[in-house]
């Protein structure tokens, strides 16, 4: 007997209830007060709004180099073969869809942290780290913001520039967002002295957001020597380092290397915090897979912090979605799948780097009088082109090439099929 038949028998015939419903329901549509008539139209998201505009464009050669989502050389979204394989495994296992705990799948959290901190990291072995599964990077950042605000923080420092969404995330957490110098537009390089100076001026105890690798949007990362200096500065000023790691494995193609700054800070004894996203490196954008971890003094502190993170999570979304975390766990818990993942992730990074080389060379070949050295010096998904707002607008209006107003070009959207078109268009809008 089907479940619904059994219940019908239990609750009696449906027809009398339906009849009551039909006769009781009044057709009169009295217009009650308009609760929402004063709600103003809000601005579209600067990054995601671009996708919408692109979708409406009918120009055949249109190019979307706005959102940071990887594309293969065919210009199409790319699902990693190891992800496909993991899904087959999960599907064959016929797992249920029960609630994960508030912190998510413990196995996923464990594997995610090992991926960043290193399998043998002493802080993991000592259980000093409070770790939770989060709604990708955004969710982890928001959770951290809410947590530190709840426990006394009033502000957070972010680099200038930074990923656009960082600012509303922290503002909506109730924090004042302060900026430290990061990028020197004139030289298209890291403003290292500005960075040291501004971080040095931060009040003791301040949280400082650092991009672990492949800085978004500039693609300029400190060298390891510079990271060591930054670490000492942060330590001496008593600051709280908070790493945003969205590109591990995707930046250089070497996952441990991309985590070097994080591991250096851990070694230097910082009780840091880290948010990880698995959107780009695993290509699991839509699944919202991430983790937030906070290194405490000891296991007891980690345990207390974890209990408080749960209290922040529960009234927000109760517990995180399972599917994406299961995919990551399936891969990272298997040596062969992990190797496949590393190779496939490196392939993505390599393709992007080859596009950087090509873009720069075509621009130089076209006789551009600007320097395009930064295109190959920068790392990760984005090229911070240096194009002005007017040039970006011209790129869109005249050439149907869509990137954000700050001139950030998603190299992932560049292919061997469109790199000539893009380079020549950039040359057109930038030549005198």
């Amino acid at each position, binding site marked *: 007997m089907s479940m619904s038949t059994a219940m019908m028998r239990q609750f009696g015939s449906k027809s009398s*209830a*339906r009849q009551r*419903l039909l006769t*009781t329901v*009044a*057709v*009169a549509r*009295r*217009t*009650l*007060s308009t*609760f*929402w008539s004063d*709600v103003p*139209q*809000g*601005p579209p998201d600067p990054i*995601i709004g671009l996708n919408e505009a692109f979708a409406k464009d009918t120009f055949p050669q249109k190019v979307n180099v706005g*959102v940071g*989502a990887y594309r293969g050389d065919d210009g199409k*979204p790319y*699902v990693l073969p190891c992800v496909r394989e993991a*899904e*087959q495994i999960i599907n064959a296992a016929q797992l249920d*869809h029960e*609630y*994960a705990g*508030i912190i998510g799948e413990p196995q996923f959290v464990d594997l995610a942290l090992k991926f960043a901190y290193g399998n043998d990291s002493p802080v993991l072995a000592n259980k000093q780290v409070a770790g939770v599964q989060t*709604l*990708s990077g*955004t*969710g982890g950042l*928001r959770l951290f913001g809410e947590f*530190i605000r709840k*426990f006394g*923080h009033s502000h957070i420092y972010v680099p200038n520039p930074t990923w656009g*969404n960082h600012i*509303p995330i922290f503002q909506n957490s109730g924090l004042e967002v302060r900026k430290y110098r990061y990028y020197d537009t004139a030289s298209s390089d890291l403003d290292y002295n500005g960075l040291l100076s501004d971080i040095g001026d931060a009040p*003791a*105890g*301040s949280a400082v957001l650092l991009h672990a690798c492949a800085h978004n949007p500039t693609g300029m990362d400190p060298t390891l020597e510079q990271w060591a200096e930054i670490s000492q500065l942060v330590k001496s000023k*008593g600051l*709280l380092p908070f790493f945003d790691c969205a590109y591990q494995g995707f930046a250089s193609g070497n996952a441990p290397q991309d985590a070097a700054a994080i591991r250096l800070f851990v070694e*230097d*004894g*910082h009780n840091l915090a880290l948010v990880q996203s698995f959107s780009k490196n695993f290509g699991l954008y839509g*699944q*919202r897979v991430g983790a937030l971890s906070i*290194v405490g*003094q000891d296991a007891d502190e980690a345990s*207390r*912090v974890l209990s*408080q993170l749960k209290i922040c999570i*529960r*009234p*927000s*979304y*109760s*517990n995180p979605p399972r*599917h994406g975390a299961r995919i990551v766990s399936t891969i990272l818990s298997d040596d062969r799948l992990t190797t496949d993942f590393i190779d496939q992730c490196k392939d993505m990074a390599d393709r992007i780097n080859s596009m950087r080389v090509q873009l720069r060379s075509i621009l130089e070949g076209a006789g551009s009088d600007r320097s395009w050295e930064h295109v190959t010096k920068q790392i990760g998904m984005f090229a911070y082109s240096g194009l002005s707002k007017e040039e970006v607008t011209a790129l869109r209006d005249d050439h149907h090439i869509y990137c954000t107003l700050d001139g950030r070009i998603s190299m992932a959207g560049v292919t061997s099929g469109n790199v000539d078109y893009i380079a020549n268009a950039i040359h057109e809008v930038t030549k005198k």
Partner: protein
Amino acid sequence: SFCDGGMSFLSEVPVGPPDAILGIAQAFRECTDPNKVNICVGAYRDENGSPWVLPSVRAAERKMIETDVKKEYAPIDGDQEFVKLALQFAYGADLDYATTAAVQTLSGTGACRIGGEFFGRFLGKGHKIYLPNPTWGNHVNIFKDCGLDVQRYRYYSSETNGLDLAGMLEDLKNAPEGSVILLHACAHNPTGCDPTLEQWKEISDAVKAINGVVFFDSAYQGFASGDAELDAAALRLFVSEGHKVTLAQSFAKNFGLYGERCGTLSILTNSAEEKAAVMSQLKLIIRPMYSSPPI
């Protein structure tokens, strides 16, 4: 190791109490008694006490694997094809999608949170929201965190083990004009005690009299009586009575998709322009929270 400055605030962080419901699930897991029983968390179990995945869900999963579903970001407001179907499921034929602002959410919790945040912004912080007494425990924390002033209306009489309609109507009558009134669409959690359709009409009139903003929480449509249309009767009554309701919808129980966090939030408006404005504001709430919902 380094123990000054940045993280010293952590040393002040006290241990927090375990969640009233989920904490018990954890205690159950840790219990070693062979006769232990978990009748705490609201998740369906079959005759053998095991979780049950609906055959239709399995079939859908097979279909998804076969059709090679991509993993791109959903839009901020989620998959509108899904949202539209979800709304039709709840509102039925009377749905006017063109004037209904709706977003995909992280199940019911996420819908309540986004709804609460929206009320906090556009009705104002400190605006009153009335919850039944008792209600699902997490409701209180969700709306408090949204900056709303959480109030209660009488709902359940332990003397009669039934609805305290007189008490409820009186409390609604005395609520300030424009208060948000949260109603459980069916299968009230935790009492299991629902108003009859006639009583719902009385409640509708009472809320109308104070120009209340109706907020339905629907977590059991189809699961309560076994008849999805019947379980939506209260919601549809209120809509036909002219209330511009807000609805939080969860697919955790009826579809057994608990851990995948599948739900919607919808807000009835008066026009396509109003819908557009409300949608834009919902997106501004969602983007800095988690960017986009899980696909």
